[in-house]
């Protein structure tokens, strides 16, 4: 009997964390029990995007989009929907504009402005089944490259496409390919940089989990173009699902003759080895990553020589980011001019972003370059929760900066973000609202880079520590009038003199917040005040006597017994000296009587 329903269950890491595997098992069990296993199939896919709503089920062909499904919902879905054809309304996506039909899935705000190219198979195919990947066009580009194109033609195509490195710096991919192709050596390597380490970034993980074959195919095409016969994928051990699916994909590709000796029965041989990193942030830097691949400690080396001259084991090495590799098959298959038609003049194509922070729809999105931050945050992300005001957008993680709310109409491309003191980065977008303190944000990122500094060069090792110290002093209310100048001078020195990208970009969170939010720094230093009410040393909790109803809730949750009062009597009072500013009283107060005050 022909199958009539495909039930896609998102099995990205976020949905696995929200127990999608229990839902999957319940689905299979219920289908068996109701005798529907032949007509209805459960397919595990990669990330569909709206991670915050997981576990997610997408039912084809009708396109019902179920969110936050629990195992106990499964029997009802199978009985009512799969058997009787009546979707279970209470579990469908509740976006006001949402409809349940497939042709209208695109009208759901979250999906409407997205254009999925790199992620086109993510959430649509089973990443552990190479045949589904092939059915969706996988390895056709490799086949064409090996049988109908010359290496030179492939490089020229990538050059013409204008594709730029999606790892963050935006170096032209075709130029890199040509440099490696021209390097005079019999042994060359291609490397996939999957050492995604920025806080708030999960783009690469999603692609490796959801469509690993697109990465393998991109690497194989490049290997043919530049003359390499061996490749490495460097991925973190903390991405176990990505590692498992990559292993499966590699094995299936070898079995199908798409990797290994004489690929597709041509003269071309190429194979890929996985290298599992231990999660050091610096290993995302290409020279440190290369050292780690070689089995050395992951510390950066001086550039030049660049990896295109001397990379893995001293040989010319082409190293691209996961998402860049995911673009290659589309560029080859559909051509450079098609690719140039998407995005902007200088930044063609799309970009995958991981939306997180103070935004309603956190998750994974792919938009054409040139989309504005406003579209990203409000149209796709659904705006800021709880009616709060947007304050800034942090892009590029610890190497990036903060873009203030009044610049959210900026179209996203490499140049415009750099002009604002931020960077594209690998695609992490953290939304900050009025309750975020910008000094504290800078301190957070400096704490991160300080921890992750490998210690090889002094400016980064000592400089990040000094900068962190100053920021800690400011947030503790002990800043002095010269701290801002000291910070600026230190930041400039670290930026100019560090050995690798980690140190060179570590001051960015400070420089950009100093530039855009200098008032906030000054309030901390001159008035001993944290305007956002975040820095615990500068705030105090008070109970507004006119709103307090003496319900006793706050007194009961206070972990340090700092609240005095008796039920039903006068307004409660917080002992500021004992209070540790944990905020639990404010969380439980039903009358919003607990206020955070800072300064005067």
């Amino acid at each position, binding site marked *: *009997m*022909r*199958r*009539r*329903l*495909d039930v*896609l269950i998102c099995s990205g890491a976020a949905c696995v964390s929200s127990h999608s595997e229990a839902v999957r098992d319940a689905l299979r069990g219920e289908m068996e029990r109701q005798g529907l296993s032949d*007509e209805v199939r459960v397919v595990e896919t990669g990330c569909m995007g709206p991670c915050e709503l997981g576990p997610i089920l997408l039912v*084809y*062909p*009708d396109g019902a989009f179920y969110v936050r499904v629990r195992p106990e919902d499964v029997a009802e879905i199978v009985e009512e929907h799969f*058997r*009787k*054809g*009546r979707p279970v309304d209470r579990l469908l996506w509740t976006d006001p504009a949402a409809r349940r039909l*497939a*042709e209208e899935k695109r009208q759901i705000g979250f999906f409407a402005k997205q254009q999925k190219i790199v992620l086109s198979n993510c959430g*649509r*195919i089973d990443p552990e089944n190479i*045949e*589904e990947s*092939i*059915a*969706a*066009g996988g*390895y*056709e580009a490799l*086949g*064409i490259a*090996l*049988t109908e194109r010359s290496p030179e033609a492939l490089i020229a195509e990538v050059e013409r496409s204008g594709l730029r490195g999606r790892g963050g710096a935006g170096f032209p991919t075709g130029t890199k390919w040509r440099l490696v192709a021209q390097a005079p050596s019999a042994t060359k390597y291609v490397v996939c940089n999957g050492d995604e380490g920025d806080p708030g970034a999960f783009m690469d993980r999603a692609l490796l989990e959801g469509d690993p074959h697109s990465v393998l195919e991109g690497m194989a095409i490049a290997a043919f173009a530049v003359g390499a016969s061996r490749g490495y994928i460097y991925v973190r051990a903390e991405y176990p699902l990505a590692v498992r699916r990559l292993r499966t994909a590699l094995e299936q590709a070898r079995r*199908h*003759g*798409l990797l290994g000796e004489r690929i*597709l*029965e041509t003269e071309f041989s190429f194979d890929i080895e996985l290298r599992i990193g231990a999660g050091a942030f610096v290993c995302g830097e290409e020279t440190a990553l290369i050292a780690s691949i070689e089995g050395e400690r992951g510390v950066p080396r001086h550039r030049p020589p660049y990896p295109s001259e001397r990379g893995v084991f001293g040989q010319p090495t082409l190293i691209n980011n996961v998402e860049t590799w995911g673009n290659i098959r589309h560029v080859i298959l559909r051509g450079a001019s098609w690719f140039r038609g998407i995005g902007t003049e200088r930044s063609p194509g799309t970009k995958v972003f991981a939306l997180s922070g103070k935004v309603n729809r956190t998750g994974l999105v792919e938009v054409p370059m040139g989309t504005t931050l406003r579209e990203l945050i409000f149209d796709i992300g659904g705006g800021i929760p709880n009616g709060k005001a947007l304050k800034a957008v942090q892009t590029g993680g610890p190497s990036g900066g903060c873009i203030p709310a009044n610049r959210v109409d900026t179209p996203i491309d490499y140049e415009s973000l750099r002009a604002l003191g931020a960077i594209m980065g690998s695609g992490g977008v953290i939304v900050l609202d009025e309750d975020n303190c910008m000094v504290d944000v800078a301190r957070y990122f400096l704490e991160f880079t300080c921890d992750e500094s490998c210690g090889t060069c002094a400016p980064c090792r000592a400089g990040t520590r000094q900068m962190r110290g100053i920021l800690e002093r400011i947030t503790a209310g002990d800043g002095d009038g010269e701290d801002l100048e000291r910070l600026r001078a230190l930041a400039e020195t670290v930026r100019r003199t560090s050995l690798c990208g980690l140190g060179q970009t570590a001051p960015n969170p400070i420089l950009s917040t100093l530039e855009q939010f200098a008032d906030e720094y000054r309030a901390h230093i001159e008035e001993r005040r944290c305007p956002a009410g975040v820095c615990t040393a500068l705030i105090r909790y008070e109970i507004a006597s006119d709103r307090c109803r003496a319900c006793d809730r706050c007194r009961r949750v206070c972990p340090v017994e700092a609240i005095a009062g008796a039920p039903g009597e006068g307004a409660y009072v917080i002992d500021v000296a004992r209070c540790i500013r944990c905020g639990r009283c404010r969380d439980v107060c039903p009358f919003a009587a607990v206020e955070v005050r800072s300064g005067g």
Partner: protein
Amino acid sequence: MKLEDLRRIRERASKEISLRTGGARVRVIVGMGTSGIAAGARDVMGAFLDEIEKRDLTDVIVTQTGERGWASSEPVVEVRVEGEPAVVYGEMTPDAARRVVAEHIVNGSPVVDYVLEVRKDAT
């Protein structure tokens, strides 16, 4: 494996994901409300699925809908061929389902014996 072999795999495997790619020429919508099921809609749907499989029709999808107010004429099935008015059939049987596949979906002429309504507005 050669490139031709790869393409053969693609052709075969594309049926596996055809439900998700939305390229259907024909949609068969079976009424699976309580009265539809009581009147035998599941067997009718089974016959559709079986006949479509036998004939290897890759551009036909079978979906369900609920009660549509035609209890006395159940099982009710709507057939939508792209670019043509939708045809609603009533009092369907498994044999009638096989006829609809052969005569309507494959050969393009609706099985008039079972037609309840022809809807020009349907897409």
